């Protein structure tokens, strides 16, 4: 079974980011990398693989040619192969455009048993992609998992949210998304880094996975960004250094004023 793990190449959250004149996140300024939340998906895919007899992990990304960086990182972590769908027409796509490409790629690749995703991207932060993939593929959605396992032919997740803690199962093929509670992503050993140098990244265009250019790009986007405003920074207030409880009076006074 192939575990297809979708990953995104995103600007680094710690960097100062800016928006280009076309109101897209500036990709030139900050360094970009494999989205941290997608590292959890790669990690869980690798852990699942280790529990299965015949599994392989394929990482898949839609993005510019530079996105190979994100796929390389996933290969270093231990993924077996990597596919990048890169095409000039894709730029400016919204989540539906991205979903269309990923869906086509998932159908294009053989023997996909699980599609793994992170809970959300760290840049656009839509959090909708796993549901869209499941819907379009007609596969069960096992989303926002804090734990994932595959036993006796059943994929099983544990999900904790407002409702409580639920155990959800489905038979593969299925779409699974994992949260940042699912287990820390591994740091690749140097042996793994060396091994990854031998693996290649397959780059495909839209035509090769059979997606019409009409479905992607800014023109197909159902949502158009019209303005970007930088929010004012919060300014630092008063700082007091506590010595033997000397701050208690000030704190009590502050709390009283704030909760009036």
């Amino acid at each position, binding site marked *: 079974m192939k575990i297809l793990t979708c990953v995104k190449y995103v600007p680094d959250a710690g960097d100062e980011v800016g928006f280009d004149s076309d109101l897209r996140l500036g990709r030139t300024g900050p360094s970009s990398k494999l989205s941290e939340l997608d590292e959890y998906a790669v990690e869980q895919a690798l852990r699942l693989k280790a529990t299965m007899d015949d599994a392989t992990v394929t990482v898949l990304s839609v993005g510019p040619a530079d996105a190979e960086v994100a796929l390389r990182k996933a290969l270093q972590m231990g993924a077996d192969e990597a596919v990048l769908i890169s095409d000039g027409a894709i730029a400016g796509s919204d989540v539906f455009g991205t979903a269309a490409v990923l869906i086509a790629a998932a159908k294009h690749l053989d023997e996909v048993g699980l599609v793994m995703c992170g809970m959300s991207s760290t840049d656009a932060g839509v*959090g909708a992609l796993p549901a869209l993939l499941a819907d379009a593929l007609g596969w069960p959605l096992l989303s926002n998992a804090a734990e994932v396992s595959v036993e006796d032919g059943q994929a099983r997740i544990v999900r904790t949210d407002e409702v409580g803690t639920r155990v959800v199962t489905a038979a593969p093929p299925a779409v699974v998304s994992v949260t940042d509670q699912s287990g820390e992503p591994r740091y690749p050993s140097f042996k793994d880094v060396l091994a990854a140098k031998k693996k290649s990244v397959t780059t495909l265009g839209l035509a090769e996975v059979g997606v019409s250019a009409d479905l992607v790009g800014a023109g197909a986007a159902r949502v158009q960004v019209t303005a970007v405003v930088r929010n004012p920074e919060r300014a630092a207030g008063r700082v007091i250094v506590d010595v033997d409880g000397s*701050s208690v009076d000030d704190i009590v006074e502050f709390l009283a004023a704030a909760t009036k």
Partner: protein
Amino acid sequence: MNNVIVLVTATNGLLDAASAELLTIGAGLGPVTAVVAGEAGDALVAEIAQYGPAEVHVVSCPQLTDTLVVAKAALLVDRAAETHAGIVLVASGLEGNEVAALVAAKLGAGLVTDAVAARLVDGELAVDKVVWAGKYTVTATVAAPIAVLSMKANSCTPAFVPAEPAVRQAHFDYTATAPVATVISTEPAAASSRPKLVEAGVVVSGGRGTDGDFAPVEALADALGGAVGASRAAVDAGFAPQPLQVGQTGKTVSPELYVALGISGAIQHIAGMRTARQILAINSDPEAPIHRLADLSVVGDLKTIVPAVVARLG
């Protein structure tokens, strides 16, 4: 005129504050049909009516509990078709965003998740979303005929507009057209006497600096009638359960008062609480980033200061 569908939720028969906000936002966009998925007593319907909906649909659906989100999404699609809705509003959250995505997919609608404001500008729907750890607000218009939005809590103050909506009881049976996931067990979230994290006027959060002892955090939260939150570091260390996490991959809160105890203030945490009106931070590290945005910063040991404060608040 846009017909608006609002998915309303309740806890223990009481309308959630986030739903009251959605009703208020919806009322600014067009005639609102409030949809309750499941049961609703008269008291809840009356409470919903306080926020000006034109109609209230109480839709029972037997498949809600044993499917994850698909039944709820299909139920909303059904209501949207029935009311010819142009806008669908749900509350943000792990589930809300998924429901929104599925509804948008089925309706061919435009989708914005985690929006903080929605308004009509020259008849066009404009939506604000805060991105990049709170640094930017992006405004987008929806080009598709239908818009599905998930809205963050604390995006507006619910406005009382008492109305006498038409109340309809309906039934919806979800029939799967493709295999779906099955919920095989549910352990309800532990009941808490404290207010809900995202709705609370006061949030007291603990971080790694608590060294695992959340007693001072809870004591201060109770003294102030507030909710308890936690940083990602505290959740990862097992000091607090994940549903209490405040930040990028947890809850976004916007209370009147946010108290950060032993929290250093990583950007992912700040993204979840930066819109609080007042912030108090207590941290022994004078260089902690949290001190750079708190209204009152105390450099000191929370383990001694907080009990003293709680004692004074009596």
